[in-house]
């Protein structure tokens, strides 16, 4: 019915609904929207307010260390605060709006990647991807669709994977996103509570159902809940924190009977090297006549494609998913230094690959992304320090294995070979293996730490996103991803959210 400030409720209020969604970010809002106009009473509990404020952000304080073999550890202690937003709309408030489905290969069990494979396929998820696209008012992504324009054919190991931007993000169209995150709250069957910090998931005596949630407000008021069903949708880090911290009935935390909550954390990192007079930057010297409009698209509303590894390519190269994104260089390389050598390389490549009179092709910048393989040692844990409401801070051991580094290198070499063998261009990747942790630019994608698997010994949630062993608790968001691919996770987490809502509707007796 409205946006309600939980701080204004009488102390010890009990919030009752059929379905309570913890977290008013993109996943939580999307699920709530699926129930608009139904008989199901929805309550959304959002820890933040309508606007981003630093008092709320303070509750995200934690620490993070990135590790990879042969690389110095890198402390990223600001990451837990800077990579998410505690506000109605969640990290959608700062999202750039890039929409990408996971590739069919991302769902496949790939024997060369331990712990890979989803219990659902891209085909299973396709109808929900379509509905997520409709929600965001973007074109659908039919699998194996031809590129949206002339593409560079580099053979079977790579394809041109599309990306599209929605206006429904705080980083793109603030007004449109403001409507997206608030208008649903005016539905008669929806209540959205702001400043409602959930501090504990309370289980029944048998430990197999959520009985209540503890809610704490910064003004000291405390509330509780009663609902048939609960969905945890607080983000890829906070979902873990709340499960682990709720350890009064289950000492290891809720849903953590097999020590899986927090493990398999995966992230996306952009690898690029900036050039200067002495060092070449990461780049592709395209051969003459190659179409670039599909890849270097400065209009955020239009499609953009990247080179992405196919399943066949990943298998042949012994890599995971991998993308190479092109961008226009700021300008011609500065005279002197390495620029003349680059020009010589471009000139020879043009001669060998081009037709008479075409001249050199464009020199474009590129950045690389490689799939972070599922790894039980890459994990989120709780620190001894606690926030003002008594919830422990988190620590992230963001860990790569040698296989991750091998996969990146194999894919880079594979793309370079594919470009060269087909006369499409030459690739320059000057990044050193021992510097990958240092040069990696971390995205705000938090995935995998409450992973989906039908076997409770191998996953926190089942294929319907229900927490194993708990009858009425589901998890929404990218924390359920078993593997992370390269795709920006928002579209996939929205598709999963819609799927989850469909799954719950009959259980909750939803009628129009």
């Amino acid at each position, binding site marked *: 019915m409205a946006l309600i400030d939980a701080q204004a409720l009488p102390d010890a209020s009990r919030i009752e609904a059929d379905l309570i969604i913890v977290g008013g970010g993109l996943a939580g809002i999307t699920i709530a929207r699926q129930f608009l106009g139904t008989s199901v009473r929805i309550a959304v509990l959002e820890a933040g307010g309508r606007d981003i404020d630093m008092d709320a952000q303070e509750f995200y304080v934690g620490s993070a260390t990135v590790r990879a073999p042969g690389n110095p550890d890198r402390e990223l202690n600001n990451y837990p605060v800077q990579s998410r937003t505690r506000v109605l709309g969640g990290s959608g408030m700062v999202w750039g709006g890039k929409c990408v489905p996971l590739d069919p290969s991302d769902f496949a069990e790939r024997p060369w990647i331990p712990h890979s494979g989803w219990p659902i396929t891209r085909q299973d998820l396709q109808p929900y991807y379509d509905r997520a696209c409709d929600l965001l008012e973007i074109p659908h992504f039919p699998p194996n669709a031809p590129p949206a324009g002339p593409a560079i054919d580099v053979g079977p190991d790579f394809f041109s994977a599309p990306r599209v931007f929605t206006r429904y993000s705080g980083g793109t169209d603030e007004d449109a996103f403001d409507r997206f995150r608030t208008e649903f709250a005016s539905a008669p069957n929806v209540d959205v509570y702001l400043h409602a910090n959930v501090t504990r998931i309370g289980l029944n005596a048998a430990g197999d159902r959520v009985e209540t949630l503890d809610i704490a407000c910064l003004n000291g008021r405390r509330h509780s809940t009663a609902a048939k069903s609960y969905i945890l949708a607080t983000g890829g880090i906070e979902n873990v924190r709340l499960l682990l911290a709720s350890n009064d009935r289950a000492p290891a935390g809720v849903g953590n009977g097999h020590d899986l909550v927090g493990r398999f954390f995966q992230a996306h990192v952009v690898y690029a090297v900036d050039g200067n007079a002495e060092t070449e930057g990461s780049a592709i010297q395209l051969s003459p006549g190659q179409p670039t409009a599909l890849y270097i698209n400065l209009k955020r509303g239009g499609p953009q494609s990247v080179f992405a590894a196919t399943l066949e390519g990943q298998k042949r190269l012994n890599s995971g998913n991998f993308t190479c994104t092109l961008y226009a260089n700021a300008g011609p390389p500065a005279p002197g230094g390495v620029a003349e050598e680059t020009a010589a390389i471009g000139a020879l490549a043009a001669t060998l690959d081009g037709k008479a009179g075409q001249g050199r092709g464009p020199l474009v910048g590129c950045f690389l992304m490689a799939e972070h393989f599922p790894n039980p040692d890459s994990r989120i844990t709780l620190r001894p320090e606690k926030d003002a409401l008594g919830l422990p801070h988190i620590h992230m051991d963001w860990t790569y294995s040698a296989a991750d580094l091998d996969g990146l290198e194999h894919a880079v070499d594979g793309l370079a070979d594919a470009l060269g063998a087909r*006369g499409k261009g030459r690739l320059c990747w000057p990044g050193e293996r021992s510097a990958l942790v240092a040069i990696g630019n971390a995205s705000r994608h938090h995935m995998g730490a409450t992973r989906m698997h039908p076997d409770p010994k191998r996953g926190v949630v089942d294929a319907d996103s229900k927490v194993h062993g708990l009858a009425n608790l589901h998890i929404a968001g990218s924390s359920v991803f078993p593997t992370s691919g390269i795709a920006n996770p928002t579209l996939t987490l929205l598709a999963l959210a819609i799927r989850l809502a469909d799954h719950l509707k009959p259980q909750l007796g939803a009628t129009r």
Partner: protein
Amino acid sequence: MIARRDLIVFLSALSAGAASAAMPVLAAEPSLLTGLDKTAGGRIGQAWLKENPGATAAALTRRLAPKGWSPATLERLRLKVADDFRQGRVFRHRGWRLADTEGALFGLLALTA
């Protein structure tokens, strides 16, 4: 042994197309020479030669143009380059992944400069 001038003319011809390739020695230095900057191309060639010690101009000429420098050589080199990439015969220079054949061309340029 190939003279540097012949190599330049050949590379120029490749750059200008088959019709030009049939022309006799160009009077002026060809455009590709600018593209293949003597100093810069030579530096790449020296780097390749460092990884391939003992390579001589004569040996490289036999490898790159066993039937002499002609327009047909370009097609042969294109196939060699493609095959190098397929077989992983890659010369890395400052991050650039080049076909070994390309490295050898730069090496020949360095030896004949």
